[in-house]
């Protein structure tokens, strides 16, 4: 469009040649008219002069009187357009309308030669002297004096004054030219009007209609004529009518489709509610049942129930997620979170499955990875969990590597990528292109073998899109797959998170040297990289020989050792190392199968720490510091574990957590769910008051005071929303503290949370809930409030 030529109207293009032709025509007409008028002037003057000459010639023949002749000549000379009349005999003027010239001789040679020529040939000579405004006729004339038998040979000169005639000729030429110009102007004007009326104006109508169409209005071009332009307009109108009817159809179809989607969403919401309620019952009971005394066989049955239920729940959640995404009802949150923690938590979830399949997990994090971000940690976790689940699902042996990397963008954003690389079955090349399609797995048989809906990747990809990223895949069949999720997020420039290891800050580990000895070299390299970022000297060994050699030659403070090295158990390696050397580095035991080992045994064997694999990047430095602390303070009476590290992380505030002491009101109409929730809350240690509907909940609130209220939304008589509103207004009238109300609902559709918050609730817990969910909410709401209250009372 940049090179578009400037607009040039046809009107101008048409009128210009018109005008030029008109002007040329007018000039030609003017010249022609002038010449024509001049010709007429010449003819007329000549005729007059000739008539005068004829009269003069005849006069003396008739009267025989020269006195009459002179009078006649004087009268002729008095005519306005006659300048002078003279009769010449020889070279002398004998008669003249000018008395004073009579008797004079003619001196003008030119005139004399003309007179001679006229006399010789006996013909007239007529000449125009335009610059002097004179027309001159020289002609032979007869002058007969009385009593003379012979005429005297005479020449008549008639000089006509043509000034006035000439001016009038020029003027008439002008007039004709003017009329021509005027007529041409009128002709051009009316031609222009006709062109405008029949061509430009209708084109303008069509243009207007098209412009209106572009702006979304269906306007017809109103031209009721049967000519070329009329045809164009008619064709356009047909087109537009076609468009508008099709548009209307489309609109109808769209409304129908939207209605269909809405109905589908409603159906899904209802269905999810209907399924979640019994699921809550099944899972809750299974959970509670598992805590009772059961035989090994019974326990296995209960676990099967639990796993099947959870699988079913995942399925439902997947379908729900997808429909939410398609309905555009998923909203991406923007809240501060720690990326590393999210990754580690997610790996934590998948670790049990890895251990079951004896697959190792390795996490590689680059130095200076910005971990404090603002975004939706839940969705990041969902994407990563999906990728990890797939990786573990399709890997039979080997390991799963998680590589994290980040690229700093403008405006304080980063684009981080999380790659999940497995050593699994891989994806056939011809299937790679559509593994992100819904309900489309690499092979129908994989569904049978591995299970799953095939929705996970599709959902993950869509979530990444919503977070400004994507998922890519590389895979070689039989070798493994690498899925990489790219996500854009804002860096939290002002992270609120406290340094959880602040109590270890006095322990400098920069001069510590570490030897990592696992038979899987990739683990050694990964951990070593992480240590080196903190200026820790790091060595690796993946077999017995290199291990002992390094231990001999280097000054090693801490050894991280896997289960076996060159087939020798870590315990034995430790013994051997202690035996043959005076050095006593601290030994940390790492295992992918922590269940097989007893930590007390390991302590007895001389290990200072016992860690399940994978060791998370965030744990490495606290681990070293803790070891140093123990060595410094010589308090070597316990073994360091992940749990002990976590315990140390807790702030004093965490120590005061007392969820079990919370006084809770639970309003739930479904007896099964009520029972399960009650059991779970009591198991945590809460004192629970039950209400079967909203009215009872209000009554209970009025009668007693609670730290927390769990409120089902849909209840008979008075529902959760109304009950909440009543409680809030009661609070207002009693001027009492605001009691946190947490919605407890099976409505899983987006927007439900908003409705709850609008009604005056504070948070949201979705059925089926696990004890962990309750504990989390109580921690969040009760502990915070409790701590606040304590602080005030101090």
């Amino acid at each position: 469009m940049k090179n578009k030529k400037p607009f040039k109207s046809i009107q101008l293009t048409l009128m210009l040649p018109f005008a030029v032709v008109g002007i040329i025509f007018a000039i030609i007409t003017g010249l022609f008219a002038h010449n024509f008028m001049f010709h007429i002037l010449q003819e007329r003057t000549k005729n007059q002069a000739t008539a005068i000459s004829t009269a003069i010639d005849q006069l003396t023949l008739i009267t025989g009187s020269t006195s009459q002749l002179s009078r006649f000549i004087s009268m002729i000379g008095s005519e306005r357009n006659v300048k002078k009349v003279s009769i010449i005999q020889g070279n002398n003027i004998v008669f003249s309308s000018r008395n004073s010239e009579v008797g004079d001789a003619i001196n003008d040679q030119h005139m004399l030669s003309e007179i001679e020529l006229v006399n010789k040939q006996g013909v007239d000579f007529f000449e125009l002297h335009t610059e002097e405004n004179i027309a001159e006729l020289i002609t032979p004339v007869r002058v007969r004096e009385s009593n003379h038998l012979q005429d005297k040979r005479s020449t008549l000169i008639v000089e006509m004054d043509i000034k006035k005639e000439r001016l009038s000729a020029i003027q008439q030429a002008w007039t004709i030219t003017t009329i021509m110009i005027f007529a041409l102007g009128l002709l051009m004007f009316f031609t222009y009007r006709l062109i405008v009326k029949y061509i430009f104006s209708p084109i303008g109508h069509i243009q207007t209609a098209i412009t209106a169409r572009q702006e979304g209005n269906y306007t017809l071009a109103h031209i009721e004529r049967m000519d070329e332009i009329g045809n164009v307009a008619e064709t356009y109108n047909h087109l537009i009518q076609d468009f508008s009817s099709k548009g209307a159809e489309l609109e109808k179809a769209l409304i129908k489709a939207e209605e269909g989607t809405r109905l589908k969403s409603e159906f899904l919401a209802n269905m999810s509610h209907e399924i979640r309620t019994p699921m809550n019952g099944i899972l809750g009971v299974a959970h509670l049942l598992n805590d009772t005394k059961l035989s090994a066989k019974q326990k296995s049955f209960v676990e099967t129930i639990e796993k099947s239920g959870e699988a079913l729940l995942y399925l439902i959640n997947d379908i729900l997620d997808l429909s939410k995404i398609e309905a555009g009802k998923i909203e991406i949150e923007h809240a501060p979170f720690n990326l590393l923690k999210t990754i580690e938590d997610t790996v934590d979830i998948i670790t049990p499955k890895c251990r079951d399949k004896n697959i190792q997990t390795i996490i590689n994090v680059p130095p200076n990875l910005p971990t404090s971000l603002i975004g939706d940690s839940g969705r990041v976790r969902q994407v990563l969990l999906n990728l990890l689940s797939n990786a573990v699902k399709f890997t039979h042996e080997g390991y799963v590597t998680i590589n994290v990397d980040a690229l700093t963008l403008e405006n304080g954003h980063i684009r981080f990528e999380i790659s999940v690389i497995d050593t699994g079955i891989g994806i056939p090349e011809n299937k790679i292109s559509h593994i992100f399609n819904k309900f489309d797995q690499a092979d129908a048989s994989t569904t049978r073998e591995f299970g799953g809906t095939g929705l996970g990747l599709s959902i993950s990809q869509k979530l990444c899109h919503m977070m400004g990223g994507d998922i890519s895949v590389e895979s070689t069949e039989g070798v493994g797959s690498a899925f990489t999720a790219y996500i854009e997020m804002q860096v939290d420039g002002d992270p609120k998170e406290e340094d959880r290891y602040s109590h270890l800050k006095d322990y400098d580990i920069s001069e510590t040297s570490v030897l990592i000895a696992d038979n899987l070299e990739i683990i050694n390299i990964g951990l070593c990289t992480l240590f080196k970022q903190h200026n820790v000297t790091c060595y690796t060994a993946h077999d017995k020989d290199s291990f002992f050699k390094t231990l001999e030659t280097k000054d090693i403070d801490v050894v991280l050792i896997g289960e076996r090295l060159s087939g020798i158990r870590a315990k034995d390696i430790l013994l051997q190392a202690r035996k043959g050397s005076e050095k006593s580095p601290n030994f940390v035991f790492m295992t992918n199968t922590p269940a097989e080992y007893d930590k007390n045994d390991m302590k007895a064997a001389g290990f200072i720490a016992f860690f399940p694999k994978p060791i998370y990047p965030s744990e490495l430095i606290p681990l070293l510091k803790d070891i140093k602390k123990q060595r410094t303070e010589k308090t070597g009476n316990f073994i360091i574990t992940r749990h002990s590290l976590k315990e140390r992380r807790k702030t004093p505030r965490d120590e005061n957590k007392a969820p079990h002491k919370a006084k809770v009101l639970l309003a739930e109409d479904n007896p099964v769910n009520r029972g399960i929730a009650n059991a779970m809350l009591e198991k945590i240690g809460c004192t629970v008051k039950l209400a079967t509907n909203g009215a009872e909940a209000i009554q209970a609130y009025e009668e007693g005071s609670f730290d927390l209220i769990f409120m089902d939304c849909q209840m008979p008589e008075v529902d959760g929303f109304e009950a909440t509103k009543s409680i809030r207004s009661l609070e207002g009238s009693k001027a009492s503290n605001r009691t946190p109300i947490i919605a407890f609902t099976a409505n899983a559709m987006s927007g439900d949370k908003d409705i709850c918050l609008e009604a005056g609730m504070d948070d949201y817990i979705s059925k089926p809930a696990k004890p962990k969910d309750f504990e989390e909410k109580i921690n969040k709401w009760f502990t915070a409030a409790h701590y606040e209250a304590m602080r005030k009372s101090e």
Partner: protein
Amino acid sequence: MKKITALLVVVGLAFLAYSNQTPSSQNKIRIGLNAWPGYEFLYLAKEKGFYAEEGLDIDIVEYISLEDIRFGYERGQVEIMASTLTELLLSAERTDKEPQLFFLADFSNGADVVVTRSNIQDISMLAGKVIAVEPDSLGLFMLARTLKEAGLELEDVDVVGMSQSKMYESMVDNSIDAAVSYPPTSVNILRDISDTHTIFDTSRIPGEVIDIVSADKAFIKQNPDALKAVIRAWDKAVNFSIQNPEEAFSIMSKREQISPEEFKDVLSGIRVLKSEAQLPLFDGENRIKASIELVNQVMIQNNFLSKEFDANDLYTTSILETAYEE
């Protein structure tokens, strides 16, 4: 669009109107005169460029007779007529024109004559004789005044009308006995034909034959400045003839087709009037007005005129009075 159409029409009409304008070459003023010596000073002014000096473009139109001058004036061939009172009155009666005398050329003081054969000794002998007169002009008044001296009437003589040049021929071939004539014809007759003499001239009726310059009343009103300029040019010509008589007489006699000496003699028979000498004639007894009335009376008596004019309508002194005013 209507506005544009209207604009086009207006512009077109304006153009037409412009191109139809009459050319402004009509400023030329034409003075009709004959060979009367008194009028030669009007011709002299043209020859010496005095009109041009006064910013005028004047054409002198020469006629053979007074009758022709009157005819030319009545036809519109000339704007200014040099004539006698007779022509003025005839034009006033016979046409719709309103001629007014605005300036005088001279008094005829012997130049107008009645020439006869030598055998006619006195006026009373003219009874029954053939006498040539310019028809419809001063000649009739002149003849009537001549006959009156001897108590005769116009019916007592045989009057034939002819032009001055024809009179010469008729005297030569003896077809007439007498002619009412004036220079240069009278000079030629008396010089060329042996048995001729003057029986009566205007020196015997001084002040009765006045040579005048007149124009239309409307023309005078519209072109006072031009007419004043004519008067100033006239005065210049008269002054020039006094200071340079040889050159002046040579120019003027040439047109008269007589010698300078003859012209000098002729001039003694007329009294040329400069403008300063003219105004007093209109004062007091007002000789000009009296002359107009006299001529009017005589012409009525001789049946040349039927109407008695108010003499005041036939002259104006406004041009003369202001000729030298700024």
